[in-house]
């Protein structure tokens, strides 16, 4: 398979989950594991451009496919607009759900660069965050959407914001 543009291969047990292959064989530990039911989305990566949960895929299923992990999102050292949005709008606290959340949000904006709040919330329903209450994640995605569209992002909504 190709991961972040690099051809990779290994012999693994059939039962090896894709997320463990990514983390332990490729040492790309930005993709996280938060549950075993495919619910939390911390393990979200792009497979052939679409967000999927890498804890609910076997590594062998990904043979021949093209993967992007959080480490591959920034291009030439330049943050992806969603990464920038998360930083600018305090879209993360502990940061554990963040890579998966960013991958889902990036995919959402790739499909629709001007989503409504409801569409943003629907687009990240497969990613659980326990810190932010999602409020600033939504603001971060709005910020990123504006950037993608080449518009001025809306101002932050905390009191005294600059």
């Amino acid at each position, binding site marked *: 398979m190709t991961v972040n543009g690099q051809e990779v291969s290994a012999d693994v047990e059939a039962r090896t989950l894709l997320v463990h292959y990514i983390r332990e064989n490729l040492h790309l*530990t930005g993709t*996280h594991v938060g549950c075993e039911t495919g619910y939390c989305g911390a393990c979200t990566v792009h497979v052939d451009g679409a967000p999927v949960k890498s804890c609910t895929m076997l590594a062998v299923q990904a043979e021949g496919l093209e993967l992007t992990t959080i*480490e591959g999102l920034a291009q030439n050292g330049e943050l992806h607009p969603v990464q920038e949005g998360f930083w600018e709008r*305090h879209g993360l*606290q502990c940061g*554990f759900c*963040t890579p998966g959340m960013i991958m889902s949000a990036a995919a959402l904006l790739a499909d629709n660069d001007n989503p409504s709040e409801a569409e943003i919330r*629907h687009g990240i329903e497969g990613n659980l965050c326990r810190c932010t209450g*999602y409020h600033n994640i939504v603001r971060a995605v709005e910020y990123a959407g504006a950037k993608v569209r080449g518009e001025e992002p809306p101002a932050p909504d905390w009191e*005294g914001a600059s």
Partner: protein
Amino acid sequence: MATTSVMGGDVRRREDPALIRGKGTYVDDIQPTAVLHIAFTRSPVARAKITSLDTSAAKAMPGVVAVFTHDDVAHLGPLLAQVPIGKLRPLLAAGEVNHVGEAIAMVVAENRYQAQDAADAIDVDYDTMPAVIDLKEAKSDAVKVHNELDSNVLHTWTYHGYWAALGLEDQTPQVDAAMERDDAVVVSLEMINQRLIPVAIEPRSVVADYNEGYGRFTVHSSTQVPHALSGVISKTFGMQASDVRVIAPEVGGGFGAKLNVYNDEVLAAFAAKKLGRAVKWTETRREAAGSTIHGRGWIGTATIVGTKEGEFLGYKLEAIADMGAYTQNFTVAIPLLGLWIASGQYKMPVSWTVDCVVTNTMTTDAYRGAGRPEAIYYLERIIDAFAHEIGMDPLEVRKKNFWQPDEFPAVMGCGFALDSGNYAGAVDRLIEVSGYQDLLKMRDDARAEGRHVGIGVGSYVEVCGFGPAVLAEIGFSWASYGLPASFNGSGLVRVNPDATVNVIIGTGPTGQGHETTWAQIVGDGLGIPIERIRVRHGDTQEHPMGIGTFGSRSLAVDGTATYQATARVREKAALIAAHILEASADDIVFEDNGAYVAGSPEKSVDWAAIAKAAYQAHTLPEGMESGLEAYSAFSPGNATWPFGTHLAVVEVDEETGDVKILKYVAVDDCGNVVNPMIVDGQVHGGITQGIGQALFEDAVYDSDGNLLTGSLLDYLIPTAEDLPSFELSHTVTPTDVNPMGVKGIGEAGTIGSAHTIVNAVVDALSPLGVKHIDMPLRPKRVWAAIQEARS
């Protein structure tokens, strides 16, 4: 808004560049060479004698290095607890199990998959006994959970008697007498504050290594309290604490679940030492649900007595709190945190009794708010019921009974003094920013159309900033872990020769942004840009003493210590700058990465020169030692008491019981604010956890003690789709407990929100006659309450 000088700065977080790139290091990301993996065999039954335990098949399985059972670790004793009332948890089950998920055997293998294979192959036979799950049944002692204890009731907290040394007055007779008054309106409800699972998204994880040559442990753990863990391991193994280095790297959420020391952490250290190899254990979500601490779990009857004009005459709570099977860190002490705020923002006599009972379930302990959300829930729900009963606006009732601004410090019946407050001010702000009068009209119009719209309000005061030395005398300290007893804050500020700054603190973030906030404090004090300030935390080797992050204490206590240390560094730096500039130290002003002489800005020197001078004897004033650093500790005289009032607008689908939140407005007052962006983020997350409790979350054990909610499929935490955006505002009433005037904000949102939502739903359904619904207000409960009210 009022903010402290630099501070108040709208500063983006220093933590984020690594985290948004997937470059943060959490414990499971640490992969030492040839690390072994641990898996546990856990009990599938709630209460049983273990009649046989056969590990032979497991030991022979591929990749298995060792299997350990109680006999191997009995010499280490049980897991130490800070407030050791009740039965302490054995490291591995000692011939009996007392809750589903209790660890029985530990397998160590070459990889995670093999470890789990072997853990499954361990053969255990059980002689099962009836489980004690129901709290009232537990209190009755009909069946005792632990034969060696006198009773299932481990302890009873009372408002006046929690600490005999204070000699407090029992206010129960006053409350009872008020109920007998002719004009008394008495409202009473039995309510459940259900058991919750904390669900940090990062599962707990530990990597332990032991170097036999140095005789030292290095333990990485996903913990809020590295120093406590170091203390427990060192005490358990009879070592010096400084030979147990504990490091908490990035911690992916804590919420109190990681404010505990766990048997798995001690067992990982044991295995590392025994096997001479690094070992790792990362809990599965199922283990996180069943074997990491739970929170809440109360049932109780709240009663308020007042006049029909809305004056409160007294409040009574009689409750039972679930401790679970074994006592861990603070377990039995958690209700005490609620006791201290039992009277909320109101001036009235209080009678408060909470029985702490043991059951065949996972241990309960601190979960965001810890005792305070429970206490405030009972109080604020019954106040709302009272307002409905006398037909008065719920905000007006509250305002009538608040402590007034000129009454602070306000000494409550529990002996503590509320430090500062303007409770009515927060309500007035809420009325203004929410458009309260318009909302009432909107609700009434909707009702006229047959819709079920409700407005709920809820106030809270909370106690945080844990640090007063007096707490140590009632058991809040790390003394049982062999560490210094006081909950002091501490911080060390060191300006390096290259004019960067290292700040080393005794408290570490689990998402709260300490690296940013502390950099602001220091940067403000020294005039050094925050990019040049590195905040270090979570490593017991770097800092001799740290209390950790919990109870919304970090900024008010450890932040103050850093603030003081910064001031000391500034004093010395002023002497150095004055020496260079041939001026008086009193006239030195630090700003823009340098210093200048007040009134003569042309006489300036940059920090690079000051820092360099500080490290070379020949450029210092005569007699001054080189170096530029200061350590400071802070022991506050009182806790801090943030407060606020929240409002929710909900709509209920009468046909299905489905609740939708239309609007959520919060006004919080945490004193002065260092970083408003971070403060708002804390409130958002806190509110969400309160909404989670109000609407979705429920840790359910069946009557046999099976945990029915062991995965995220059935333990429902809020998703983005379940929530609105929040509207926040703040009032600022500084405290004089610490020089920065800050209080704490980590738990406020949670303490303020659950009852606000329930009050709103009950308001929506009050025209149908609904008076109360127990949380979580899942559609089935709401629908059932509607049917019951109709019948």
